[in-house]
């Protein structure tokens, strides 16, 4: 991605620990559970696609494993990956669900489209070779923004599917920590105020370089939500910097995201 190796590493840590906990664990239970959640959300987005996949008994893990585990980085064209990842860092796993639902809707969502996938294999082929038009950045992002699937829907389905899972598979073997829906949720969950920590830059500035009065040092250029390990890099300001930097790579003092983050405490942060 467009960030130095160290920041990219910490982003990866945050993805594994906060955004998608359990995805990369031994039994892949979290992925399978999310497959069930995705499928249960499908009827509200595209009844024909849901009916078709149910009829053909296509297990969600057959098509969504790579989508979700790689957060679409292997599926979408690069320009779309960047947009989706920006939204994902900001908003959390909801974005991944929405992208998946949009792709299913536009691949299997009409009887005309279903004509060419009468068998299970043909359907899988369609989902493997997605139409480039539906993955195109402008179209996809617009659809994802407009899709009425919220964190609350996902959490509700999560509880339902978890209950079903326990009935059929027993207790989850992976005791993974709760999932955070986006940068704000992660930040809010941290037990200490960000300003209280001393900056401890791990990237050495060249001699003569001066720091801004706000003490912004090894700032992430992109939406790198910070965990405890990197919290020391955070500026003292009260602003949710990770989101500010997401929108403003060079982080001018104007944090455009401030309003949207603070004004809306509802179930969705931005969308």
């Amino acid at each position, binding site marked *: 991605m467009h960030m130095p190796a160290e920041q990219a590493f910490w982003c990866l840590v945050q993805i594994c620990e906060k955004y998608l906990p359990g995805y*990369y*664990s*031994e*039994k*892949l*239970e979290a*992925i*399978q559970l999310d497959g069930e959640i995705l499928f249960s959300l499908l009827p509200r987005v595209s009844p024909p696609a849901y009916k*078709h996949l149910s*009829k*053909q008994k296509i*297990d969600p*893990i*057959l098509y969504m*494993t*790579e989508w979700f*585990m*790689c957060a679409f980085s*292997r599926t979408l064209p690069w320009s779309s990956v960047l947009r989706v990842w920006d939204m994902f860092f900001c908003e959390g796993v909801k974005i991944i669900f929405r992208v998946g639902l949009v792709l299913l809707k536009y691949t299997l969502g009409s*009887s005309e489209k*279903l*004509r060419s*996938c*009468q*068998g*299970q*294999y043909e359907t*899988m*082929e369609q989902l*493997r070779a997605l139409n480039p038009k539906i993955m195109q950045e402008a179209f996809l992002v617009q659809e994802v923004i407009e899709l009425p699937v919220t964190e609350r829907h996902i959490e509700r389905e999560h509880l339902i599917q978890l209950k079903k899972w326990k009935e059929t598979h027993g207790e989850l073997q992976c005791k993974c920590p709760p999932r955070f829906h986006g940068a704000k949720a992660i930040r809010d969950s941290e037990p200490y105020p960000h300003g209280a920590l001393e900056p401890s830059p791990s990237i050495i500035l060249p001699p003569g370089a001066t720091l801004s009065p706000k003490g912004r040092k090894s700032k992430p250029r992109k939406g790198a939500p910070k965990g405890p390990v990197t919290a020391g890099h955070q500026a003292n300001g009260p602003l949710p910097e990770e989101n500010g930097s997401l929108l403003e790579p060079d982080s001018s003092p104007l944090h455009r995201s401030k309003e949207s983050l603070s004004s809306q405490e509802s179930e969705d942060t931005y969308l």
Partner: protein
Amino acid sequence: MEAIWLYQFRLIVIGDSTVGKSCLIRRFTEGRFAQVSDPTVGVDFFSRLVEIEPGKRIKLQIWDTAGQERFRSITRAYYRNSVGGLLLFDITNRRSFQNVHEWLEETKAHVQPYQIVFVLVGHKCDLDTQRQVTRHEAEKLALAYDMKYIETSARDAINVEKAFTDLTRDIYELVKRGEISIQEGWEGVKSGFVPNVVHSSEEVVKSDRRCLC
């Protein structure tokens, strides 16, 4: 629609990660070799028609699986619906050969009540100078498990066709002899005589699934 086929066999390709499962399948289905191949995530699918006798075509549906241990919980669900399997190891990687037992145990536990016809494949045979597993010991192991053994190279296209077509022929013989039969609710073998799945809201398209013989 596809050309007409007599049967459809579902094959599964298993073995340790990095032994070359995806590359072998790609060579067989796409006729090319990718120098760089990303690890498979979950399962992947390929298909190809094979003519085993003049006018008799079999459609192979080939399921590629992730070799990494963590994917086992996902991939093992697909052994059941396969009639044949290629069990790969890398001739330059002793460990992948030692794990062949484990793979067989794993499949045995999850395939019941059906059976899978396996062929043992020693892959990357173009790297003979780095060989860590002799042909002799591989053949011995294959014999012990009543499998055939073949050495292949996806890079140099050695025995790739043969590995798949020999397995297909063996399965075809078993089907002809009635030792393997088409069963409702089992995807391993499908007949090409009737459309196997028809979408209810669509018209039934029968015309291109007739038998040729």
